[in-house]
């Protein structure tokens, strides 16, 4: 997995016509082909070699030992190319009866859900004669862009024009190497500045394009809105996981504008915390808690926001409420312990301050 280049640090596969066996080639004593050695071995390279030897079958066929060596290799070097060997796909008959039952029932309930959704979609579309969804105008191309690199051709032509003929002595007399060099430097500098400007402009364009999308809810049916809102939320989750919080915020906001789902509010609250908009995070959590006062995630997030705002009393209250719903919640227990300790400390500090000022 090289950056921009293919890296081959693995052992080259042995050639077919080789007379010596792999054991000799890799210089591995035959005693090493044992469960005891394989389990204790910490050298990923050696394990790779052992797997190769075992797979080749030159020393006999030991399926259990091979599997054991592969497992060890998986622990030592999970990205080893040797583990890329494809296995046959799992068929339904290979699953245990419980797993199979679970998968079947999962898919059955999904197909039923899809049937109702499809029915809803058609009904909604038929019931009301809705106007078509407004779309941006048809693209009008001013000119056809060409695949050929016209820019490159132009540059080549220009170069051709500037080139001095070797027999043109008058022109060579006028030629000043130093000014030419400085011209080249100047051009390089200009190109660099141009490139920087381009990068800046792209960043700026991306930032300015992050505006809220106006959604005409009346033009869409309920099913359409809920499907679109779910997709926006999923996109938001992806951006959040990648650390693009500003982008995630925008996507969650669009999702909420389409369909008020508490999951989207909950996720937006977390995004607000990451962006340090604690007041807004608290507001989103409150929206969730108005609908579902027992929502642990919302309670925890509001508590976290309160904590950041140094309102430890409110935070403790929320953590305790979360513990009431889920008594084993580790986050709440840890945070509560920390807060109570901190609270005691601050109380004593506050007391001393009061004494001085009184």
């Amino acid at each position: 997995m090289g950056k921009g280049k293919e890296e081959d640090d693995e052992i080259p596969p042995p050639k077919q016509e080789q007379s010596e066996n792999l054991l000799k080639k890799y210089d591995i004593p035959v005693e090493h082909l044992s469960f005891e050695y394989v389990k204790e071995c910490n050298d990923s390279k050696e394990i790779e070699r052992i797997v190769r030897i075992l797979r080749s079958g030159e020393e006999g066929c030991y399926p259990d030992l091979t599997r054991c060596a592969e497992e060890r290799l998986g622990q030592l070097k999970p990205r080893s190319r040797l583990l890329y060997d494809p296995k046959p796909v799992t068929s339904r008959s290979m699953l245990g009866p419980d797993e199979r039952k679970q998968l079947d029932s999962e898919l059955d309930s999904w197909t039923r859900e899809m049937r109702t959704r499809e029915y809803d979609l058609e009904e909604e579309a038929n019931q009301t004669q809705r106007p078509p969804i407004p779309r941006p105008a048809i693209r009008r191309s001013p000119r056809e862009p060409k695949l050929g690199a016209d820019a490159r051709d132009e540059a080549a032509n220009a170069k051709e024009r500037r080139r001095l003929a070797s027999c043109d002595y008058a022109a060579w007399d006028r030629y000043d190497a130093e000014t030419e060099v400085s011209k080249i430097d100047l051009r390089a500098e200009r190109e660099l500045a141009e490139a920087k400007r381009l990068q800046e402009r792209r960043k700026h364009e991306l930032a300015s394009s992050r505006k809220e999308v106006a959604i005409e809810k009346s033009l869409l049916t309920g099913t359409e809105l809920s499907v679109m809102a779910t997709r926006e939320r999923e996109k938001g989750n992806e951006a959040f996981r990648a650390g693009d919080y500003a982008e995630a915020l925008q996507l969650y906001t669009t999702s909420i504008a389409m369909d008020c789902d508490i999951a989207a509010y909950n996720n937006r609250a977390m995004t607000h915390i990451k962006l340090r908009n604690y007041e807004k995070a608290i507001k989103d959590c409150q929206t969730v808690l108005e609908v579902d006062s027992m929502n642990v995630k919302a309670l925890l997030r509001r508590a976290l926001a309160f904590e950041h705002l140094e309102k430890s009393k409110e935070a403790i209250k929320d953590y305790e409420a979360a513990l009431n719903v889920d008594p084993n919640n580790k986050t709440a227990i840890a945070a509560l312990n920390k807060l109570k300790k901190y609270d005691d400390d601050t109380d004593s500090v506050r007391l001393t301050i009061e004494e001085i000022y009184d």
Partner: protein
Amino acid sequence: MEKLAKPIIVCHAEQSVDYTVFDAKWIPCSAKFVALGSKPRNTGALQIYELSAGKLNLVKQHEQPNPIKCSTFKASSLRERYLATGDFKGRMCIYDLEDASTPVYKVEGHKQIINAIDGVGGDTIGCGAPEILTGSRDGSVKVWDPRQKDRPVAIMEPFEGDQRRDCWSVAFGNSHNNEDRVVAAGYDNGDVKMFDLRAMALRWESTLKFGVCGLEFDRRDIPMNKLVATTLKSRVYVFDLRTQHPKKGFSYLVEKAHSSTVWLVRHLPQNRELFMTAGGNGSLCLWKYEYPPKRKVQGADGIEEGVIGSLNLLQNNILSSQPISSLDWSTDKTGLGLITSFDQTIRVILTTKLNLY
């Protein structure tokens, strides 16, 4: 624990058909899909199946005049769910699946076979106009708007007299608002070109080692983030598109997999960091992209450069003895996939535990 959490690809249902099946797509918001291909008499097959109680039931079928190569629902709204197809004679058609006997839109778009098709803007709001993208053996890439008859809205092709390369793959991306949109096209000589449809200019180009069979952005409707290209001779390329260096372009990584042609790549609709590649030996690879700690660095000259992350192979399975011709994830159920292969079989797979990644 690690071992337990690994996703498992389960082959849930199989259906053999009496034609060469090139493509199959889930119909959005349903448990049905459409399968397309070429009949022995050199006509086109269009069938609709429904998944019910672990079986695939044929709902209806229509014979089409030309063999069909590729299709997409992405340019159609959820209420219409029209299917856009590209066929062997270079025609692009749009079908209303309620009555698929005659297309609702038909255009002789290319002189030769349409190898690849993509759509955008249909089931989204605020992500630009609905458009269809076709790439053909005749070397041209065209953008169509279903509201405009007979004429494409954009053409990208070489100059008169220049050599025309066979276009094998196309993809839409960067369509995060009503104006921005890019098109990526991959060619048989390994060229990958990215056109900016807003500026109507070439944004970036590169030449990979081998012909580019598969191309997909991780999402069509976000500021462009990643592009995956798959090529002949078992290579998978991943480009980070967030930062473009004026000289070095986009940073990328290469992986070797499948030990054969990697025909295609499809990102999971529910998680853009997961994608599956399918190979000429009938194998499937499920990958996860891991971001680097920092996605860009500033060079000494003040110009930013992207940093590529790494790929993690989650699962590697052999599904069929013949090459896989298409793969489509359901947008409505995480992990539910539809796979066609040249052993004339359609398979429904379910990948478990994807929500853990």
